C-alpha cells in the first residue's frame, strides 16, 4: 500500500526536512547511545512505511554492519585492549572493533533512512519541492521519469513489429547483436523525433511564459507547520546538546564513557523525539484505526 500511510501523506517539505536532518545529523553524532537511537528509529520508521517487507531490507543490513565493524581493526591498530594478534604480532584491538561498529551503525542507519526516504519522497514530491528552485532541471527529471517506461513499451512494440515481418530472427550472437543495434538506432531516432514534436508542442503552448505549477497539490497548514516545528526544534535541541560536548565519546586509547550529565540525557531524549516523529504519527494512525474498527 504505497502512498497511503500517514508518513506518505506528510507535506513534502516536512518529509524532506525530516529525512535530510536525520541523515545529516546521523553522520554527525559520534556517541554510541545516539547511534543506537538512530538505528532503532530508522528500523521502526521503515517498518511503519513498508510493513512486513521491511524485514528483508533490515536483514540485509546485518552483513553490511558486520563487514564494516570487523574490517576496521584490520586497518587500525589503535587502542590498548588487544583481543588477539595475527600475522606475527599485528594487534586486533577491542577499541578499533567498537569504533568500526560505531561506523557500521552510522552507515546502516543512513541506508535505512534512505530506504524510507525512497518510499516516502516519491519523484513527484521531489519535483514538487524543487520545481521552484530548479524549474528547468526538475522538468527534465519529470520528463525523463515518464519517458523511461514509455521507451520500454515502445521497444517491445518495435520487437513485435520486426518479428512480424520476419526480422529479429534470433540465431547466432552476431545476428542478435545486429538486431539489437538496428532496434537501438530505430529507438534513438524515434525518441529524438518524438522529443522535437514535444518541444514544439511545449513552445506553442507558451512553455516558460509563467511559473510552472505541479501535478500534486499540498497544503501547508497548521498541522504541517506544527510537524515541521516539532522536527526542527527537537533536531536543533539535540544538535545543541551534542555540540556543547555533552555527547562526546572517546574510543582511543581506551573506551571512556563520559559521565552522563543532564545535558546528555536532554540531548538523547530530544534526538529520540525527533527521529521517532514519523514512527509516532504512523503508530498513532494505526492505533486509531484499530480503535475505530473495534467500535464497529
Amino acid at each position, binding site marked *: 500500500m504505497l502512498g497511503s500511510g500517514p508518513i506518505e501523506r506528510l507535506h513534502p517539505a516536512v518529509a524532506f526536512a525530516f529525512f535530510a536532518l536525520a541523515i*545529516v545529523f546521523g*553522520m*554527525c553524532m*559520534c556517541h554510541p547511545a545516539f547511534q543506537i537511537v538512530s538505528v532503532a528509529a530508522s528500523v521502526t520508521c521503515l517498518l511503519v512505511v513498508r510493513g512486513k517487507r521491511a524485514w528483508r531490507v533490515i536483514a540485509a543490513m546485518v552483513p553490511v554492519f558486520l563487514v*564494516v565493524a570487523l574490517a*576496521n581493526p584490520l*586497518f*587500525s591498530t*589503535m587502542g590498548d585492549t588487544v583481543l588477539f594478534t595475527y600475522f606475527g604480532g599485528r594487534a586486533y584491538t577491542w577499541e*578499533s572493533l567498537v*569504533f*568500526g561498529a*560505531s*561506523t557500521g551503525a*552510522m*552507515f546502516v542507519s*543512513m*541506508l535505512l533512512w*534512505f*530506504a524510507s*526516504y*525512497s518510499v516516502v519522497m516519491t*519523484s513527484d514530491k*521531489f519535483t514538487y519541492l524543487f520545481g521552484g528552485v*530548479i524549474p*528547468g*532541471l526538475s*522538468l*527534465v*527529471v519529470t*520528463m*525523463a*521519469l515518464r*519517458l*523511461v517506461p*514509455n*521507451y*520500454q513499451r515502445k*521497444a517491445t512494440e518495435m520487437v513485435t513489429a520486426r518479428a512480424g515481418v520476419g526480422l529479429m530472427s534470433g540465431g547466432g550472437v552476431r545476428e542478435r*547483436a545486429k538486431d539489437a*543495434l538496428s532496434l*537501438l*538506432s530505430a*529507438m*534513438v*531516432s524515434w*525518441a*529524438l*523525433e*518524438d*522529443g*522535437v514534436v*514535444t*518541444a*514544439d508542442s*511545449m*513552445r506553442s503552448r507558451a*512553455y*516558460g511564459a509563467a511559473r510552472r505549477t505541479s501535478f500534486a497539490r499540498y497544503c501547508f497548514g497548521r498541522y504541517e507547520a506544527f510537524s515541521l516545528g516539532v522536527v526542527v526544534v527537537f533536531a536543533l535541541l539535540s544538535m545543541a546538546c551534542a*555540540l556543547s560536548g555533552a555527547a562526546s565519546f572517546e574510543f582511543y586509547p581506551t573506551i571512556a564513557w563520559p559521565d552522563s550529565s543532564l545535558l546528555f540525557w536532554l540531548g538523547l531524549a530530544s534526538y529520540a523525539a525527533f527521529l521517532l516523529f514519523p514512527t509516532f504519527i504512523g503508530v498513532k494512525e494505526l492505533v486509531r484505526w484499530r480503535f475505530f474498527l473495534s467500535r464497529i
Partner: protein
Amino acid sequence: MIWSTALCLLLSVVILVAGDALGFRYCLTSTAIVVLSMVPFAVSFESRRPQAREIVVLAVMCAIAVVSRVVFAGIPHVKPLVGIVMITGIAFGGQAGFLTGTLAALVSNFIFGQGPWTPWQMLAYGLAGLLAGGLARAGLIPRGAWSMPQRIGVSVLGFLVVVCMVGPILDTCTVFTMVSTVTPEAALAVYSIGFATANVPHAIATFATLFLVGSPMLAKLNRVRVKYGFMEAGKMPK
C-alpha cells in the same frame, strides 16, 4: 556562473574547516562538497532560462541512458550508462553531457534506490559527459562518423575514463562512508577491491557500448541536430 562557482568554492572551504574543527566524520564533509561542486552547473543552466528543445533533448538522452541501465539490470556489471552519457557529451557539448550524466544518475536511482552514493554517482557520470564534450570541442574526438581506429581510440578512452575517474570517485564514496579509520592502507584496499570487482567490468561495458553503439548513435544525434538545428555545440553557452 562565476559568482556561484566562487560562492560554492568558498562554502566548500568553510565546510572543510568547520568539519575538521568540529571533528565531523569525513562522509558528511565530503558529500557536502560533492553536492556543492554540482551547484554551479545547475545555476548556469537555470539562469539562462533553457528553451523547451534543450529541456526535451536532455530528458530524452537522460531517459535513453536510464533505460540502458534498466534493461541490463539483471546482468551484473553490464552498465552502458556512462557510454551513452559520453556520446551525449560528444554530440551536444560538455554542459549537456554533464547534465545528462547527473540527471541520469538521479533518475535511475529513483528506480534502483537512493542512497549516500547518489551525489557521488551524479558527479562521476556528469564529469564523464563533461570530459567527453570538452575533448570533442577541442577536436580530439570526431563528432562525425568514426573510422575503425577512431572507434577503438574513443572506446579505449571510455575504458580509461571509467577506470581512472568514474570508478575511483565511486570508490571514494565507499572510503568516506564505510571505512572507519581512513588510513592509506584502508583506502588502498577499497580502491583495489573496487578496481577488480566493479571498475574493470564497468569499464569493459563502457568500452563495448562506445565501440558498438557510439558511431551509429552519433550519426542519429547529428542527423537530428542538423535537421532541427538545435543544441549546436558552438551555440551552447559556456
